[in-house]
């Protein structure tokens, strides 16, 4: 489904990703772990098409298509979804209006009829309950005044509504207390299916207690330095990143 070959990317002239290789097949759940500053969000943003990040070399195929030929909105319609590490607050655009516009854009792309306001309201209410968000949140501005945890659950809710083929979850666990973490994990598990892949990006392994990955990769200094099964995550928890020869706090990409 997703095939990344020798991906290099930079921000503001500084190289962050230094040759990433990754293969993801339908139905698989992958976890990318790594210390802060190792380039996890950069990889996620590049996949979603953020123009602030410049791809300098490498290639990415998504379901047989050259990802770099697709605009951000086209990638989304082809089934790429990114749950942001830092969801953006947009006062003045109601969450409900935003979600309905997005869902209808997807439906239109798939040749399905658009949902009217009443139909959508019903669906949105159900899904918001699924992630334990009060439906009142639908009326507020997009992420406006949401707590960190509420923003993360709003991201999971969007994933559930948009039914992507590849869901990339960038630190969806951070800032959540244990109950909220379980709710978010239940949401993500509800996404799991044979034809859908999930890429979880996380600093800690605790989310992986609830969403068990098929593959774990360690990202450091802009490269995947180790890959393995779920036991790799447990090993990392036990021994820390130091075990792999990287220190957590100075693992930033060299400038």
């Amino acid at each position: 489904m997703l095939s990344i070959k020798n991906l290099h990317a930079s921000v503001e002239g500084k190289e962050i990703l230094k040759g990433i290789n990754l293969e993801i097949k339908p139905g698989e759940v992958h976890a990318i772990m790594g210390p802060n500053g190792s380039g996890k969000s950069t990889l996620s943003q590049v996949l979603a098409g953020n123009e602030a990040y410049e791809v300098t070399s490498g290639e990415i195929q998504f379901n047989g298509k050259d990802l770099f030929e697709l605009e951000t909105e086209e990638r989304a319609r082809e089934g790429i979804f990114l749950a942001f590490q830092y969801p953006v607050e947009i006062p003045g655009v109601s969450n409900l209006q935003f979600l309905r516009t997005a869902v209808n854009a997807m439906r239109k792309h798939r040749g399905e009829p658009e949902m009217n306001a009443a139909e959508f309201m019903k669906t949105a209410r159900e899904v918001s309950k699924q992630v334990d968000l009060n439906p009142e949140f639908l009326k507020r501005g997009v992420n406006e005044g949401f707590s960190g945890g509420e923003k993360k659950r709003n991201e999971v809710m969007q994933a559930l509504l948009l039914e992507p083929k590849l869901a990339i979850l960038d630190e969806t666990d951070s800032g959540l207390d244990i109950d909220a973490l379980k709710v978010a994990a239940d949401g993500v598990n509800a996404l799991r299916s044979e034809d859908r892949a999930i890429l979880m990006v996380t600093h800690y392994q605790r989310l992986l207690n609830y969403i068990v990955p098929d593959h774990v990769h360690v990202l450091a200094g802009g490269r995947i330095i180790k890959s393995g099964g779920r036991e790799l995550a447990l090993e990392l928890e036990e021994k820390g990143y130091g075990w792999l020869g990287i220190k957590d706090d100075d693992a930033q990409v060299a400038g």
Partner: protein
Amino acid sequence: MKPAPTLSSAFLTPGSQSLPQPLLDLRSQRGTALADMPLPTRKTENWKYSSRHLKLSDELATALPVKGKSGPALAVPGYHVVFHNGVMVPEASDYPDVDGITIQRFADLDDSLASELAERLDNTLDAKAAQLARLNSARFEDGLYIRLAPEAVLDQPLFVISETDACSSGSAYPRIYVDAGRHSQITLVEEYISLGDEPVLVNAVTEFTLADGAQVTSVRLSAEGENVQHLGATGVRQQAHSRFDSHCVGFGGPMRRHDLQVRLEQSGANCRLNGVVVTQGKQHYDNHTVIEHVAPHCDSEETYRNIAADQSHAVFNGRIHIHQDAQKSNANMSNKNLLLSTGAEIDTKPELEIYADDVKCAHGATIGQLDKQSIFYLVSRGVDRREANTLLTMAFINELVQQIPVESVRETTQVRLNQFIEQTFEEA
């Protein structure tokens, strides 16, 4: 040095509609006073950014023909008065005749009411700050006179639809005067529209006087066609504890200007002035507001938003003048601007003049662009780029649109703004 251009005498000949004698007299007096009036130039302080858009060529001087019957084919809910080229069309109007509320066209006023009105017209507007409002007084051919007796309440909004026929060049001079008695209440919706696309000039003046405790809500929509120059002025004088609530929405044009002047003359008077302006192409819009805090314990709250696309030009000049006796004044002014392209221009100038020492006065002006991260967030959900831009641009003014008090006006305004903004992103 070249002598400054003056107002052509062609502009000082009114049309031939009949009016009561006192109003005819006032008109000719104003005409005489305007002879040789210098036209604003770049050096005229309150026209600095807009004089280059003003084109008062002689063919605009002719009064547009009055068609009497037709009137616009607009379905207006509730009470409405229709003006066609500045002259009322009774057949197309529908308004109540109730005790305590007088709604009459100028042409129908009896002599005593007409001479009382002639005394009062222009008293709310500073002639220097709104020079061109005086042109209306030299030229109006009809007008709407509204008087509310003490305690009178108009139970529904009154729409004044001012339609200009742009089928030949010329000008129209719509005029409204509202005298709101003690504790009376009225909501007035002024809507300026046009038909046809010849260049025309609309010079519209509306005045409000609010007695103690009166409450006036004013909605003003300026949405004429692409060749219409609009020079509008609104003057307001407020007595004790009166409330003036204003919502102005303006769409750009070749030359669009609105002067809004509010005088808080007695303690406890308060006003809220909201304004939204959108411009695109090579359009222009200029809002000049003045709030005079004359008396102590008055509040003013002003919020204006401009959105300029393409090579268009928007201007906001907000003056707050707190007089020496106006202690405990509370004045808030905010002007935020959104530039949708690098070719657009926005000029914003808050002017505060404060002579009292115990006042609260805050002001802020910003100019920004659409936030790239927000656009990315929206399109990353599959939302069309154009729709994302439109949503974010509407978000910039939604708060003000939501405050428009009449539901039907709020909804149509929202739809029109949305269409206008969507258009600006068409080629993007």
